[in-house]
């Protein structure tokens, strides 16, 4: 049971190497889309988990991101030991969910024996529909020893939620927009820090929203003073390397910006300059 969960990952067991980059964009999109379903490890509150939308028997998504492996932190409110499995309910204050832990090996049995009723635990598992209702197929249960972890988990849920809603912009696999759940907790009031770090990235498979982001980034890059004063403009290869965006995306963004009249080509069709101050 333990090893079987990761059969799909055996393809990547080659000494830490990643899949080859020498593929076409379309193929890459399809591959990324398929891989992304099983590659995310989403921290969720139980209200988020119960509100997740479903598109099939075992497919869930939230904030436009497919759910596969989830992380839950909560308190065990009910526990029932059976011969081959342990059924328990986890409650984190925002909701509750049924959990199943199959115990085939000694380590699994010992792990569940260390867990008691009323104890706070952190569990990793897969979200499934079992007998008509949602349940988590658990493959890791750890008691919570540092209770800062509970606050940390809720903060991480908020952060991942904002990350997915503001940066990813939703997946193309979602045909209809679904109402997003309300945030369970409001953030602490803190002063604005314009220059603090914030991770972000662009996804190539999300064309419309991602292209908008790429266009804005490229335009901001060309609007920098040192590029405005340059007579020859900036080559598209330089833009791709500086901004670390795939060249094909940069070219498409440059074409759209040129059509919009924001930039224009200079020496040839590969060098561009912003129309600001032109």
């Amino acid at each position: 049971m333990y090893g079987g969960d990761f059969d799909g990952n055996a393809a990547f067991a080659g000494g830490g190497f990643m899949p080859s980059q020498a593929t076409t964009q379309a193929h890459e999109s399809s591959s990324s889309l398929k891989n992304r379903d099983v590659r995310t490890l989403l921290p969720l509150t139980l209200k988020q988990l119960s509100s997740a939308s479903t598109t099939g028997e075992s497919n869930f998504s939230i904030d436009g991101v497919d759910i596969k492996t989830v992380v839950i932190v909560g308190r065990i409110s009910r526990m029932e030991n059976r011969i081959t499995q342990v059924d328990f309910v986890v409650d984190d204050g925002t909701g509750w969910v049924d959990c199943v832990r199959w115990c085939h090996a000694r380590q699994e049995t010992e792990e569940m024996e260390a867990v008691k009723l009323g104890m706070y635990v952190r569990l990793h598992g897969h979200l499934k529909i079992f007998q008509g209702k949602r349940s988590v197929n658990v493959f890791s249960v750890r008691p919570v020893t540092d209770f800062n972890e509970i606050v940390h988990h809720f903060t991480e849920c908020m952060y991942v939620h904002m990350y997915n809603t503001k940066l990813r912009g939703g997946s193309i696999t979602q045909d209809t927009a679904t109402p997003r759940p309300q945030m369970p907790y409001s953030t602490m009031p803190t002063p604005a820090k314009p220059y603090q770090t914030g991770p972000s990235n662009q996804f190539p498979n999300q064309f419309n929203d991602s292209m908008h982001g790429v266009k804005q980034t490229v335009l901001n890059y060309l609007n920098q003073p040192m590029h405005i004063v340059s007579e020859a403009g900036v080559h598209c290869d330089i833009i791709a390397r500086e901004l670390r965006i795939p060249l094909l995306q940069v070219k498409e963004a440059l074409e759209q910006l040129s059509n919009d009249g924001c930039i224009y080509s200079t020496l040839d069709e590969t060098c561009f300059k912003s129309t600001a101050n032109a």
Partner: protein
Amino acid sequence: MAVSLTEGVVMKMLNGEVTSETDMMPVLQVTELKLIQSKLHQNQESSNRYKFLLSDGTDLAAGMLNTSLNSLVNQGTIQLGSVIRLTHYICNLIQTRRIVVIMQLEVIVEKCNIIGNPKEPGHSSINPQRGGVNTQSNGGSEQQQARRSDVNGGRYGVSANSPQPQVVHNSSDAGRYCVSANSPQPQVVHSSSDAGRYGVSANSPQRQVVHNSPDAGRYGQPQVSQRYGTGSGYPETSPSTRPYVSSNAGYGGSRQDQPRAPTATTAYSRPVQSAYQPQQPPMYVNRGPVARNEAPPRINPIAALNPYQGRWTIKVRVTSKADLRRFNNPRGEGKLFSFDLLDADGGEIRVTCFNDAVDQFFDKIVVGNVYLISRGNLKPAQKNFNHLPNDYEIHLDSASTIQPCEDDGTIPRYHFHFRNIGDIENMENNSTTDVIGIVSSISPTVAIMRKNLTEVQKRSLQLKDMSGRSVEVTMWGNFCNAEGQKLQNLCDSGVFPVLALKAGRIGEFNGKQVSTIGASQFFIEPDFPEARELRQWYEREGRNAHFTSISREFSGVGRQEVRKVIAQIKDEKLGTSEKPDWITVCATISFMKVENFCYTACPIMNGDRPCSKKVTNNGDGTWRCEKCDKCVDECDYRYILQIQLQDHTDLTWATAFQEAGEEIMGMSAKDLYYVKYENQDEEKFEDIIRSVAFTKYIFKLKIKEETYSDEQRVKATVVKAEKLNYSSNTRFMLEAIDKLKIGDANSLPIKAESSNYRSDAFNSGVGTSGTRDTASVDARREFGLPAANQVGQYGNQYSSDARSLGGFTSCNVCRSNSHVSANCPTLMSEPQGQYMGGTNAGGGMPRQHVGSY
């Protein structure tokens, strides 16, 4: 008396009636002769000057001899007791005193007994009598006080040390002030002359001893310098000679005790009084009210002290006392200590004692006590060692007095000039300031070996205040143990104390920082308004505020840490450029390969690191290393873990080697190898592997592209793995959420920006960014501003105020009358020299002087 002096000419000179030889060529007697050597030209004989007192039988005038006439003194033609006629001289007003400058003279008698009993009305004696009986009060008007003081000084210096002559001289003073002279007055004058003659004769042998002192090089300087030090009007000497001066001043004082009058003189003078008993009662009655009007000593504020003040007394509290220190210089060994004073008006000044004064006062001074201090020497403060806001400092000698008194509530215990931590950014390096703030963290004490092979202790803490800035404060020496340990205990218990630092030095090393110096003082949770205000601010809003450190934190790794998510590795094509990319991710270990988790390594040491190359088994129990070309009996085991990292965006494989592997597994590779293969404990091995899965770390990854089987693959290596700190990571995510909100408000997707991520968010610095968008450019521009302001002047170069005496140009002067006109150039140069030497020379004097010719 065979020679008759020109009567009354001294008084006319002092009043300005007689100013040059055109008015009168008086005949005067030399009563004192003294050599003055310039400090800056000790070896040049031409710069020596002779100073003397001239007597007309009644009064004394100060005189200065032209350098061209030095040979007369050296030959002995002019000596103590000589009678001379001034044939070419000028009377000048120098710093409120009349000085007779003699360019040409005629010696009438080479040596003669002192004629009459002259006194000096306008000048203190060279050897004032210390501790002498003084029945007169110094109260009353300033003019009257000055006159009486001078009269007393002159009397003591010249006449016998007996109470009786004082009475006689009082009658002389009375005569001067009365419009009509009484008929008995001439009798009194004559009697005093006789008494003076006998007294001087009796003391003549001892007086010679005193006046020979200037000729001895050892004591010549202290007497001259002491005169300078007492603010007699001459320029200040170089500060470097102060220790020597203070040391020898004591010796000079002891020598001055030798001229004390013998008892016989006192006994002899007694009959003189009885002869004139009927004359005294009316004069005493006349001066009674003035004599009784003695006021207590007047307290001067520190702010009013200046070198030109004769006598002052300050009432002060000692705020700090430095340790006794010994020094070595070309003049020999010495010792010194200093302490700082504070008075009721907030004035601060430093006192320094050298050598003998150290023995006298060191044990007397206690920090916090109140004293009355008087009769010290004021000198310009050396800013290199003295940080107090005062242009002067006090040097004490054996004549100074320090009198303890009761505690005075009006004198505060501390006096601070606090500056904001934000202001420190623009202050000069090596300047001194007071600072107060909240201690946010403190590091352990470390021992540092200095260049002179002495060990010193160092401890750093972070201080922050309402300016939104924080600064690193470095403690040296004893501060680390006493105050440092107390601060450590307070910080560990969650109380962040208020710390006031007095006299911290601003330095620059990776940004601005403050260090303690010898005179620094620490106050933990002090009880004054600034501390209470700061505490209230901290409880209200400071606890959660964000601070920018003006001390750049030193990072062991030269590269910036970039916090990213795993999906960005592929999206941004990390590692595809020539150089590897270094990122930091927060991820969970979701899987780990258990086969081949380690390899056999070569244990041979190569320098300070083991070889670590893979060794092969020879089959006979030994292992061979190809690189070292050696065989070893036992090999080492090192980690080479293949782990799968996963976060909320993506999943990646990574390789963890020895250091990171030990961090992840919690044990060494050799121990784990023994568990699996030597002990054959499969269950324990699986327990260890399972306990590692699904744990969260902050990984530092090196992303690099490598070629493998003609195919480019991006590979991730774990450089460092840290267990997740929930508190700091929560704070980090809250900041990221704020950034996402701002991004939404600006309708801009936020690209990844570089930042200096640190586990302690309170001290996070201003982020630096690349060349991406306008916000990044603004960030870089803003970050550049403090760096520009940090460029400052290094050190305050101390320049001495000492100026050399203006020397008179020496020329050959012929005493023949036919060459009077030839002396005109010499005459012109001499007044210029004197004016240069005087700081109070008036503008009108040169014109008046030139006009007279």
